[in-house]
Each structure stands twice: as C-alpha cells, then as structure tokens.
C-alpha cells in the first residue's frame, strides 16, 4: 500500500485556489521533495497531509487512511516539522517533550533517549527562550520523531542548523532513518540528494512531477523564475 496517494487534491482560501489538482503516489520508505516559490502552496500541502487542514476536493490517502474522515487514525503515525517549532518557550526542552510524550502515549524513557539523540543533554532543563535557534530546531526535530512516526513531513528541516547539526539529526530525519519523508526545500542541490520523487509547485498547481533521476537542479531553478 502506498504511503501517500493524492488525486486531484484541492484547497481554497476564500475564493482563491491555494492548491489545485495535485496528484501523486509515494511508496513506503521513499522521499518526496517539494520545490516552489513562496506562496506556491508547499506549506499548505504539508499541512493538509498532516491532517491539520482538510482537503476541499479530491481524494487524499495518507498511510492508508482517507482524509478527512479517517484523519484520526493517521494522527500519531506521522510527524510534522513546520516553520514553527510548536514548543512552549517558557518550558524546558524536557518539559515540552514530556508533554508531547504524554499526548502521544509515549513512555517517558523515550524522552531521555531522544534528548540524547539531538545532543541536548545538559541543556534540557533550561527554558527554550534561552536557547539558540539551532538548539530550538533540534528540540523541534526531537518532538517530531518522538513517537516514531512512519511518515515524516518536514518543512525546510535544515533551517537554523549548522553543518554539524545537520549531520547530527540525519539518522533521525535523513534518508538513513528509513521512514517515508515529504520535504519542502528551497535548495535545489541539497534537496535533490536523497530524493526519490520531485514535485514542483507554482501558484498551487503542479508545474513538475518526476522521479528524481530525471530532474536536474537547473530545471528546478526554472520554477522560481
């Protein structure tokens, strides 16, 4: 069963189309990378797949669950890393992660392991507002993978991370993690590496949908023109 199956997905914002007629199939373990200029609908697509937004038309199947009716059974099996870290600034990393762990019914020991996994041991008891943006991003990544989701939805996951940070989180959210991934990226070269399928969006419509092997960085840059 494919991890993602979209047919004619559409979502409007008032009278304007935010996403229109998006169709694709993504198999388990594969990586879909989405490119497109600002306002093209990348974040909207990610939020629809994460069940935060309902599709207004078309058929959407995420992990075998049809949205929006079966959204409740897909939640808990996917992890979203958006522009916002979705963490409370006044609480510490550990408190934030413990809160999410109890929401997702994850044992507390996993929290400790994940803190180690993003190299936050030693800083996990300081309020997030005292931490640098790179550290907050690492805690956000920890939050996204805490419940060991089958599907990862990542909106520019490497923003705010230095090369050491990127390498550090690679086993969690990179190709080595073995999970199905959907990544929004602005970097043609870095984005293509590790991609199986490439989607290019422009004004909510599909401008480009090809296996990664048939796409060059040049073609992607044309999207932004």
């Amino acid at each position, binding site marked *: 069963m494919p991890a993602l199956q979209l047919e004619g997905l559409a979502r409007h*914002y008032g*009278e304007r189309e935010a996403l229109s007629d998006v169709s694709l199939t993504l198999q388990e373990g594969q990586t879909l990378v989405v490119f497109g200029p600002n306002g093209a609908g990348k974040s909207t697509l990610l939020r629809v797949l994460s069940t935060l937004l309902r599709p207004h038309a078309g058929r959407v199947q995420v992990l075998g669950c049809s949205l929006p009716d079966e959204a409740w059974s897909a939640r808990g099996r996917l992890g979203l890393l958006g522009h916002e870290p979705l963490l409370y600034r006044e609480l510490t990393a550990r408190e934030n992660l413990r809160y999410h762990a109890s929401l997702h019914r994850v044992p507390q020991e996993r929290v400790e392991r994940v803190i180690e996994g993003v190299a936050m041991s030693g800083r996990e008891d300081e309020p997030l507002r005292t931490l640098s943006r790179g550290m907050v991003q690492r805690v956000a990544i920890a939050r996204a993978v805490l419940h060991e989701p089958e599907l990862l939805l990542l909106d520019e996951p490497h923003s705010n991370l230095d090369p050491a940070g990127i390498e550090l989180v690679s086993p969690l959210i990179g190709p080595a993690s073995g999970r199905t991934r959907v990544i929004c990226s602005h970097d043609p070269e870095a984005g293509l590496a590790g991609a199986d399928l490439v989607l290019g969006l422009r*004004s909510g419509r599909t401008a480009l949908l090809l296996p990664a092997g048939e796409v060059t960085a040049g073609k992607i840059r044309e999207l932004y023109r």
Partner: protein
Amino acid sequence: MYGKGLRSLSIVTVAAMALALSLVFFYAPLEAEQGFLQKIFYIHVPLAIIALCGFVVGALFAIAHLRTRDSSWDMRSYVTIHMSLIFAVGALITGSIWAKGSWGHWWVWNEPTLVSFLIVFLLYATYQPLRFAIEDPERQSRYASVFAITAGAFVPMNFIAVRLSTAYLHPRVLGGTSNLPGSMRLTFMVSLAAVTLLFVTMCKYELTAKHTRAQVRALRRRLVGEDGSPARRGRTAVPAMGTQAAGRSGL
C-alpha cells in the same frame, strides 16, 4: 437559486405593508389611555418578534453550515443576522419613543422585553466586528457560526433571566399582546405578517446581490486568470462564496 420569485415577493410585501398601514391608521381604534401614540405598538412589537426569530433562524443556518460545511449556509446566516440586527435597532428606537410618550423617559429599566433586547443587541453588534477581525475566510465563517449558535441559545436564556429579575419589582409597563380586542388583534396580525414579508424580501435581495457579485468575480477570474479579479481588496466581514459560486447556475 436566490433570485427566483423576487419580483412577486416584492409586490406581495409592498401590498401587505400598504394594507397594514391603512389598518393601523384607519381601522384600529384609538386606545383609551395612551391615545395615538399607542399605534407604535403595531410596528414595535412585530419588529421585536421578527428580529428575535431572525436571530434564532440565523443560529439554525449556522448549525447547517457547521454540519455541511457549505458556505452558502454561512451566507444565509450572515444575511439573516445582519438584517435582524437592523430590525432590532428599529425595535429599540420605536420602543424608546413609545416609552418617552407613555412614561416621559427615553428608557425604562422595568420593561423586561426592552432590557433583554438591549443586551441581545449589544451581543449581536459584535458579530460583524468579529467577522471582520478574522482574515482567513473559512475560519471566519466557522467562528461566526459558532458565535451565531451560542448567541442564538443565549437569546431565550437572557429573556428568562431578565424577566425574573424585574418581575417582582414592577408590573409590565408596555403591556403584552394578550387580551386584545378583535379589531386590534386583526391589525396586529396583519402588521406582523407585513413585517415578516419585509424581512424575508430584504434578506432575499441581499443574498441575491451577494451571490451575483460572487459569480461575476468567478467568471472574470476564469476569463482573465487568477490576477484579473483579486478576490478581496483588504479585509472584509462578508462571507466568501467559495469556488462553488462559479459552478452554481440557476439564478
């Protein structure tokens, strides 16, 4: 869909209003105590009743909207509440005039209907500012529906509470509609029917106008492209018709 039968409805409404006015001025007897001023009763009470019913109907449309997520229900809810608010202002003004004429005060606290009306008016006056303050059109519709349902449930609750708080202080000042002699009752019923027709007609006009405007925008967008007709200039409190407007015909 909205404009069908608008002309015949308008004609009937005008006829009913003319009939009601002639009855009020030429047929209904002069009331002993209050004299000519009492005739305001024939416009004040229907305005109040229709406004209240309009608020409740707006809440019912809002329930339909939340259940079906069809934005046309939200449009109906918006127009109904909007119109009821206007009628409510009319009820308050006519009630105030009546109070001034009968009691010498522009406002009386011991008339529970008038007081409840003031509170309901203050509540619904926030409906449009609430809508205007939410930019995302879908969220605006949803939040407005939640408000409309809450406010709709509030209307009867409020009347009970205010009635209880004034009941033991003074007897009703402006009097109810029971114990009306035959000629007065007839005039009242006709006035009620006329005001109801007026309400429905005005709502239909507004719905038709908005629907037409949305269709024009959708057509223009199809001809010229997305940028040809920007959906909104700035923020607005009016519900969006969604992209269904383009497909719906039958006007």
